């Protein structure tokens, strides 16, 4: 059992409502793993469960087993911040920390986790992350401006850069290109494929073309369960489940 992410019979309820209903998942290392599914099927909740950011919500109950990079995420001895250090997250809604500058938004993670030893190293890391997120050229002359001044698409790329700068082992991206134009989307997709070398990417996307372009494996989620999972080629050519087929051919979702 040597997976980047291993989920066994995961049940999650918020405020007494079951959101995830027995999710099973095995994500190998160094792949792009896409999660598709209609709105409200629980994709974002699943991601929030993997790095325990769901702890911040009230009335949450989690049952089942989640193992990320060998760490038993819901073990009582596990320190949630330690999990979040390993599992970077790009949220569905761009959420830069509005009062911090563009630079500080990216630098905060490395600072918190003591990834750098000098200001110079930090500068280099921030620049590297912003370049990877295809944002550097647009912000290099105003790194000290508050992040809230950026456009929606720029904020989205800033959040990608922020997650990259933490050097996570697993990177979860929740619709990272929803606000981007075609050129930026292509750049981010290129980045996702390139990232595979060093990290495992879990990508939530509504766009089946995007999934087919970048993912090695896809999972199809429906009403809190994973209905189907497999290699991208197989799922897209011979979907095992009727609903999967209807979803990828655009008949619903």
């Amino acid at each position: 059992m040597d997976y980047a992410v291993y989920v066994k019979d995961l049940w999650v309820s918020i405020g007494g409502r079951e959101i995830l209903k027995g999710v099973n998942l095995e994500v190998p290392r160094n792949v792009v793993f896409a999660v598709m599914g209609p709105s409200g099927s629980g994709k974002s909740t699943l991601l929030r469960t993997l790095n325990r950011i769901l702890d911040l919500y009230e009335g949450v109950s989690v049952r089942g087993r989640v193992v990320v990079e060998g760490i038993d995420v819901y073990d009582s001895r596990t320190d949630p911040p330690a999990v979040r250090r390993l599992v970077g997250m790009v949220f569905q809604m761009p959420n830069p920390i509005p009062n911090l500058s563009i630079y500080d938004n990216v630098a905060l993670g490395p600072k918190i986790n003591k990834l750098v030893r000098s200001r110079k190293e930090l500068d280099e890391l921030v620049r590297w992350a912003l370049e990877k997120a295809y944002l550097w050229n647009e912000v290099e002359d105003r790194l000290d401006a508050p992040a809230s001044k950026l456009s929606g698409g720029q904020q989205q790329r800033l959040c990608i850069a922020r997650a990259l700068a933490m050097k996570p082992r697993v990177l979860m991206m929740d619709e990272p290109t929803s606000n981007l134009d075609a050129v930026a989307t292509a750049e981010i997709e290129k980045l996702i494929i390139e990232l595979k070398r060093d990290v495992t990417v879990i990508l939530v996307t509504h766009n089946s073309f995007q999934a087919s372009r970048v993912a090695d494996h896809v999972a199809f989620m429906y009403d809190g369960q994973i209905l189907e999972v497999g290699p991208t080629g197989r799922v897209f050519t011979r979907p095992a489940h009727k609903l999967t087929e209807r979803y990828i051919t655009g008949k619903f979702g």
Partner: protein
Amino acid sequence: MRLPTSRAVKSTALTAAVALAFALSVAPILHLMATVVYRGATVVVRNFPSILFDIPAAPGDHQVGGIGPHILGTALLTSIAFAIGVPISLLAAVFTAEAIRRWERMVGRWTRLLVHMMLEFPTIVIGLAVYGVMASITPFVRAFVPGFRPFSLLSGVVALVLVAAPYMYLQIEDGLKSVPQHVREAIYSLGASRFVASLVLLRYLKSTVYAALSIALARMVSETAALFFTAFGSNVYPPLDTDSLFRPVGSLTLAVYTFGLSGYENWIELSWAASFMLLLLCLTLFGLTKLLLRGERRGLRGLR
């Protein structure tokens, strides 16, 4: 020439009415401030600077003496109470606003309830309660600290903390609670511990925190009722020894009250002087906060 329409007439009439109401409501405040400044400043200027250091003259004397012990008392009471109250309020607010585990959220709910109740208590009741506790523990504490007394600087400090800390706590807690969930998620998703996340969040809420602290400080400076049975008041300087924490101490507010009611002309003058000093202190605090907040905003603008 056009005749004014009925709408224009109505609008003018309303504007005039609002202006009048405004004038009527600020007039008493302005009058109050003018009186305090006029009567207080006269006394202070005439006796400057000895009034800031001397002890009061005997009642009925032709001299006024000074309010030195009261100024020192207010300075001691507020600075100690502030130094204790701020960290307590900050820690409590962070603990309950950033609660995660079920028992932590439960403690948070009870804390909020308790604090809301404390804010409704008349401060004189808080003072009385502190006196009651202090008096009842006195016999036991005296076994270890012979100089311990219920009327003391220490009791005054405890009372002031109980008066002002709930206020600071609620302001900061409300601020933390109002931070959008997606911002909080962003901070925690970077692997921040609760301590680090709180620092980032408090920085995000800097102006709320400044405002809460300065209003709390102003409340401490101007608190009277809670001090009657605790700090008690004193017209002499406390001797500078280890027991001074356990001796009664004066304050500007107590000076306003006791001298004002005394019926002796020279003490009534001292009362005005103390009022003036209080007003000066509160206005200075107000100005400093405004300045701090403006510097803050300008700092942000300068970055762009």
